[in-house]
């Protein structure tokens, strides 16, 4: 099944279960709510508000991880490598990096500004550029550390003493 359809099915199921709980709650407390319109309006209204709120989050994919925060810009090649799962990590200069912490979702955009995916950050670490290994480079979709450094040098004017952040990411589906 397509990833997006599966996510939609899971979210819908969650929403349905929530609705069942809501109805069961009203039924269980039916005598309590009979005592007056005001009680029903306040308590029932509040619970319904929470359900609608949760539903909104669920349907926009913001549950259980919250809204995406921050964004990462990719070249067309880099973006494709991530979407095709050839690359699993992203290497960026640490200074001025706006990515959130591990477990959060970040928007992935092409340099033109188009969002192409949302990425879950699974792991992150900082290292000196000179300490990057070939394995780090391969995870980022490059053949060797030298290739990665060369690409970074032309894009960000990297120097060996610079500090970079390696983010291990997972694409959460298509653009929204």
């Amino acid at each position, binding site marked *: 099944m397509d990833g997006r359809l599966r996510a939609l099915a899971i979210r819908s199921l969650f929403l349905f279960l929530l609705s069942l709980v809501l109805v069961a709650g009203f039924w269980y407390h039916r005598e309590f709510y009979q005592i007056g319109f005001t009680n029903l309006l306040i308590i029932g209204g509040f619970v319904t508000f929470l359900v609608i709120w949760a539903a909104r989050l669920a349907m926009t994919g913001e549950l259980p991880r919250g809204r995406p925060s921050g964004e990462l810009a990719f070249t067309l090649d880099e973006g494709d490598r991530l979407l095709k799962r050839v690359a699993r990590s992203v290497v960026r200069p*640490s200074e001025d990096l706006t990515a959130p912490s591990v477990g959060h979702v970040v928007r992935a955009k092409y340099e033109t500004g188009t969002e192409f995916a949302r990425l879950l950050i699974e792991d992150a670490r900082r290292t000196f550029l000179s300490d990057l290994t070939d*394995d780090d480079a391969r995870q980022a979709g490059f053949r060797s550390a030298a290739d990665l450094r060369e690409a970074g040098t032309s894009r960000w004017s990297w120097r060996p003493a610079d500090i970079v952040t390696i983010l291990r990411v997972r694409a959460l589906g298509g653009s929204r």
Partner: protein
Amino acid sequence: MNLSSVIVLLGVAADGWLLAFLAIRGRRPWLQSTFAACALSFLVVGAWSAARNEGVLPAVREDLVLGLMLLTHALTAILVLGLIHGEALPRRRAMTFLLLVPVPLLAYLAPIEGWTVATAYEGTVLGGFLVLCLGIALGETIFARHASPMFATHAFWLSVGVIALIVAGPIYTYELEFLGRSPLAGANLAAPLALACFARVALQTDPFPIAPRRPKGRTTTGGIRGADAIVFDERRPKYALRTAEEEAGSDRPTLIVARDPPKVTTSGVASASFAPNRHAALRTVTTVSEFLASAPGGFVVLEDLADLSVLSGWRAAGEVAVRLRHVARDSGSTVILCPSRLTESERKTLQGLDLPWWPMADAATEIVAILAQSFGTGAGRLFDSFCRGHGIRREDVTTDHVQALQDFLSRALTELSGVVGGPAAHGLQVQFEAASSVLRSFAAQGAVEIARGKWPSRRSSETDVELVVTAADYWKGKEMEELFAAADAVSEREPLFEKARLVFVEQLGDAGEGVLRTQLAKIGKKPEEIDKTDLVRIADRATVDLGSLADVVDVPQEKKRIQQQIESIRQKLELIAEGQE
């Protein structure tokens, strides 16, 4: 059996399961004990309530059950406080247990005042205490959610648990009374949900495993006695790790908390490594506080503050520094923070915390400065020859390499003895001895002396300003060029066995030499016979042998550490072999 009794009994079973689960999985005895007491009190009250509803048990004294109900509320507040202030040391823990003091008093007064389980939440002193306990728990969680970036997520789950207890406790009792039904007699239907939330937080903030464990108790103080969090400002945490070894050597409880397991397990130094998740910052705090609670006056190095920043966010990492400072002061311990790989803005924020800030010298820079005092501007060339000869990068050089450097220079001078004679040779020898003396005294300096800032690089720059011609400049002539050429030759002819030995010892500790000799024996060579092709063979064989060792290790972190060591050994041996071509 009516529905409410079934639900209560299911809750009792869930309480028991959670109790056992946390008892098995947790690493904090104090917190586990509090959780166990809290879960047990909910469990007993629930079982009693169901049994009374079903008429299974004979009548139990009302004040005893009321006492248990009081206990559930007081222990809930204590548990929540313990979870939020997890780093609190025994002295502070004891303060939270003051909440238990009114429990026997109120239980004693219950029959006199006519308080019953069914009317517990009414507007009496008893009801006030019960609500106060839940109020303290809720208030602390709300405060923690807003005040602590590190604890915000956990505070949410704690508040879910406490609100569930409030809804299923006082509010539900009020509803049942309103409808004219009999209350559940002490049982709280939300107890399993609340305990599940508390258990979740307890496990997510559990300390990292520490190995090896040392016996509890205060021991001797080391060279750094300040009870504070100190920042060792160095590009790579070299002095921090060296100081940890020195402190452990003086029998002080020492812990290194880092992203990766240590390459070499130094005797006496305990270590804990981060799990790569967003709770790393809080778990680091609980790890350090639990360690220092069991070993007051200890010494802790937090090696990878920068990694905490990317795992949990900088606000959480900054809070770690603040909390660790409190822990260090409360326990009379020293915590070293390493700002290596922090961004400029993060460093500024850390400096804004007013922690003691100790600038540390870079070993490579200082060694070059010392060599420059004797050998002039060619010192860098000499040093590079040494690094090339030993297959180490300039930035990886530490004061531990000073002895090897002296041996290297000595060999270079020996090489020269046949070429340079007379006063020139004597002059070089004098310069070598002067450099060796300064190198030795520099290497002998600990972090405290280095932090005073009297570094060779600073002294030499001052000297250069004062003197127009230095001794080093005087000798910067033909003999120097010959010395550099000799050093290059030495680096080429340095026994390969010695280079390989350094690589193995660097990665595997003293056992590394034994591993290398075993590999040599397997390929049937003596140390003086090995050539570059042997190095490649040794690299391949060591990869296979140590790889099979890694395969049988079940602990993922240890397995990863061994694999990193193998990879590092292979790369460095190949580097040395390439350098021979």
